[in-house]
C-alpha cells in the first residue's frame, strides 16, 4: 500500500501544517485555574455588596465554610485581605445552625431537596450565600459563579438577595446574569 517512512511522514506533517495554518496566527491560549478565577470574582464582587441589617461586624467580612470543596479551598487565601476598609476573615464551622456571625456563606454541592432545606435553615439572617455550581442561583443561592463553557460567569438571584436584605451595586448587576427563583 502507501509506502511509509519517517521522511514521508515528516514531509506530510510539514505540508499539512502549512496547509492548515497559513500565515501567522496569534492564539490566545493563556488559561487560569478555574477556582483562582472564581475566587477573584468573589473578591471583586464583595466590593459591590451591602449588608443592610448588619453593623456589628463592620470591621470584618466573615466568610463561613462548613463543607469544604475545591472552591472553598481557594477562598481560604482571601483571609486578611481588605475590601473597602473591611478585613476578610474565614471561619470553618460545624453546622448550618451556627451561621449568625457569617456575612458570606459558602454553599457546597447538594441534592436539590437538601439545598432547599439548607437555604431554609439560614433564612432572614442577612447572609450572602455563594456557590459555584450550574443552576444554583436559580435554586436560591444569591451569588453563583458557574462555569459556562470555558469561562466563569456571575449569576445573581435578586429575589433571594431581597429576602436576605442584601443589595448589590449597579456595576455588578450590569454584568451579572440576573435570575429569579424557578
Amino acid at each position, binding site marked *: 500500500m502507501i509506502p511509509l517512512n519517517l521522511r514521508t511522514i515528516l514531509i506530510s506533517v510539514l505540508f499539512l501544517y502549512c496547509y492548515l495554518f497559513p500565515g501567522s496566527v496569534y492564539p490566545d491560549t493563556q488559561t*487560569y485555574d478555574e477556582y483562582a478565577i472564581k475566587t*477573584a470574582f468573589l473578591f471583586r464582587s464583595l466590593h459591590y455588596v451591602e449588608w443592610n441589617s448588619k453593623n456589628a461586624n463592620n470591621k470584618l467580612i466573615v466568610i463561613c465554610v462548613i463543607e469544604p470543596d475545591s472552591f472553598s479551598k481557594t477562598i481560604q487565601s482571601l483571609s486578611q485581605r481588605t475590601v473597602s476598609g473591611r478585613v476578610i476573615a474565614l471561619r470553618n464551622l460545624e453546622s448550618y445552625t451556627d451561621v449568625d456571625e457569617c456575612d458570606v456563606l459558602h454553599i457546597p454541592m447538594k441534592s436539590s431537596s437538601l439545598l432547599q432545606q439548607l437555604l431554609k435553615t439560614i433564612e432572614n439572617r442577612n447572609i450572602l450565600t455563594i456557590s459555584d455550581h450550574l443552576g444554583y442561583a436559580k435554586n436560591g443561592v444569591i451569588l453563583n459563579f458557574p462555569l459556562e463553557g470555558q469561562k466563569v460567569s456571575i449569576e445573581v438571584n435578586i429575589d433571594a438577595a431581597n429576602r436576605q436584605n442584601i443589595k448589590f451595586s449597579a456595576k455588578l448587576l450590569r454584568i451579572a446574569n440576573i435570575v429569579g427563583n424557578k
Partner: protein
Amino acid sequence: MRSNSASLALKFRLNLLIVALAFGVFSFPCQSNDETQQQLTQLLQLDINELMDLKVTLPSRHEERQFDSAAAVYVITQEDIRRSGITEIPELFRMVPGLHVGQIDNNTWAISSRSNLSRFSNTMLVLLDGRTLYNPLFGGVYWDVQDTLIQDIERIEVIRGPGGSLWGANAVDGIINIISKSANKTAETMLYGGIGDGDQHYEAGIRLGSQLKNIGHGRVYAKARESDQGVYLDTDQSTNDGFFNPGNDAYDDGNQQQAGFRMDFDVATNSLLTVQGDVYSAEYHNIRVTQPRENTVDAKGGNIIINWNQQSAISSINFKFFYDYTERVDLVFEEQQDIYDFDFQHSRSFERHTLTWGLGYRHTADDTMKTDTGIFALNPASLSDDLYSAFIQDQIELEEDQLFLTIGSKFEHNDFTGEEYQPTLRLLWKQSPQATLWGSVTRAVRTPTRAELNAELVFCDPGLPGCVQSISDPDKKSESVIASEIGYRSQLTSNALLDLALFNNNYHDTDEAGGATNTYGFEILSKYIFSDDWRIEGSYTYHRGEKQNNGTEVNNNTIPKNTFHFRSYWNIRPQWELDALFYYASAIDAPVAAPDLEDMTRIDLRLGWNPYKALRTALSVTNLLDDIHGEALELQRINTGTGRGIFLSMAYSFERK
C-alpha cells in the same frame, strides 16, 4: 600523617560538595505553595470586567462522574501519565487496580482484567478516541503499534467487568478507553525528546497546535521511537533448548514512526465536529518458539475518525465514523484489514428517566496470506463481514438524587455466530454525597475470532516424518459470561478515598471440552492526599480462577493471585517532583507445558525538574531493583525480560507568535 590530613581535607571537600549540591537542589526560593496561588495573586488585581474574559484551564470533570458510576471505573489522568515517567501505553496499566500487565518481550504485552492473560487476551475492548483497537483476526490488541503522542492523552478510562450492553461484543472483562485532548487544549508548539538505556533507546516528537481562525483549533504531530533489547530469561520454556543463553541480549528491539492530526471545529453553540487521523510505520523483532525463530514484524497502518457531537441540557446526539487500515507482515503470516465503522447515539432525559439508544454498523474486510514457511494460514484467506448493532438503556432515578436503576441491552448480528444479546442491570445508591454503593448483573459475549474459526496450522517436527495439521472448528460459538459485581466508594475524609469492588464471573465456554470457568476476587483502592504537595495511592487485587473440564478441575492459572501497587507523587520543592511506583505480583503456578512464573517486584522512580512552566525535564529509572522476570505465559514466543532502564527526557512548549 600528611596523606591522612590530605584525604581528610578531600573528604571534607566532598562532603561540602554534597551538602552544597543538596542545598542547591532544595533551596530554590519558596514561592507561595503552588501555581494556583500565584495565579490568584495576579487575578485579585483585576477588575471585574477583565475577569469576565478569562479562560479557565479545563480540568477533566470525570472524577465526579467516576464517583457516581455503577461500575468499577479507574481513570489514569495526564498528570498520572506524566509523573509515571512511562513512555509506552501498555506499561501505564500497571497502576490500574485489577488489571494484569504481562510483558512478553520488549515490544509485546498481554493485558487483561479478571481473566486469562495472554498475548491475545481477547476479552478486553480497547478504544482510542472511539476507534476500536481490537484485532478481529486473532482477538486482543497489537500493543506494539498502538501509540499516540503520550503528552496529548487527556485521560484513560478503564472499566473492569463487562460493558457489553453499551459497547458490544468482546467487552467481556473490561474496557480501556483512551481519550486524547481536544485541540483547544493543545494550541501550542511542543518539542520533546528523550534518550535512555535498558528499555527505550530514544523517543522524539513534535506537536504543532494552533487556533484555526474563527472556526476552532487544530494540531499535527509526529513522533519516532526506538525500543531497546531485553534479555533472554532462565526459564524452562520447554522449547528454549539452550539455544538462547539467559542474560544475553534478546532479539526483541523495535522502532516506530507515527504522525497524526486532530481538528476540532466549533460548528455552533454546543456542537462540536472533530476530524482526526494517524499513520504509522513500525518494525519489531521477536523470537518464535519454533523455526523460523528470529522473526521480524513489519507493520503499517492508518486511520481517520470523524465525530460530531451536539449537547443540550437534556439531550445529546453523537455520530461517529471511523476507517482503520492495518497491515502486518512477518515471517509466518501476512495480513491486511480494513474496518469501516458507523455509530450513532442519542441520549435524552425526561422526568426521572435518561434514555440512551444507538445504532451501529461495521464492515470488516481482511486479506491474508501464508508465507513460504507454510506454518499458518486462514481458510478462506480473505473475508468480508458485517456487524449490525443496536442498544437501548434507561437510567431511572427511583429516589431523587439517591437511587438509580440502569437497565439495558445491546443486540447484535454478526456473520459468524448470528444474533447476540447482552443485557445489564445496575443499581446505584448514593448513600450520601460522600458514599456510594453499587451492584450489577450483566451478560456479555465474546464472539470467536477468525483464527478460532478458520485457522490451519501445520507443525512439522524435523525429528519425525510428516507433519501434523490442525484445523479449527468453523462452527465455534460465542463464549459468554454472567458477571455479578458489587462495589462501594467512600470519600472517607476530604483527603481520603476508598474504592472497593467485588466480582464473580461465570464463563460458559463452548470449546470441545465443555469447559466452565469461574473467576472471582476483589480490588481495593485507596487514595490519600497529605497536602497540595504530596499524595499517595495504593491498591491490592485478589483474583482467583477455577476451571473445570467435564467435571474435573484443571489448572488454568495465567494471572497472579495477589497484586499490589503503590505510588507516591511528591513535590519536594516548587520546581522539583519526586515520584515513585511500587508494583508486586505473586508467582504463577502455571499449567503443564508453560513455565512457572516467580513473583516479581518492580520499583520505578522519577525525578522531575520544571524550571519554567514551558520546560519540563525528568529522569526516570524503571525496574530499579533490576528484577528480571517473565511476566506472562506464552507458548509461541520466547519470553524475555527487561532489566533496569534509565530515561532522560525533556519537553518544551511555547506559543507560536
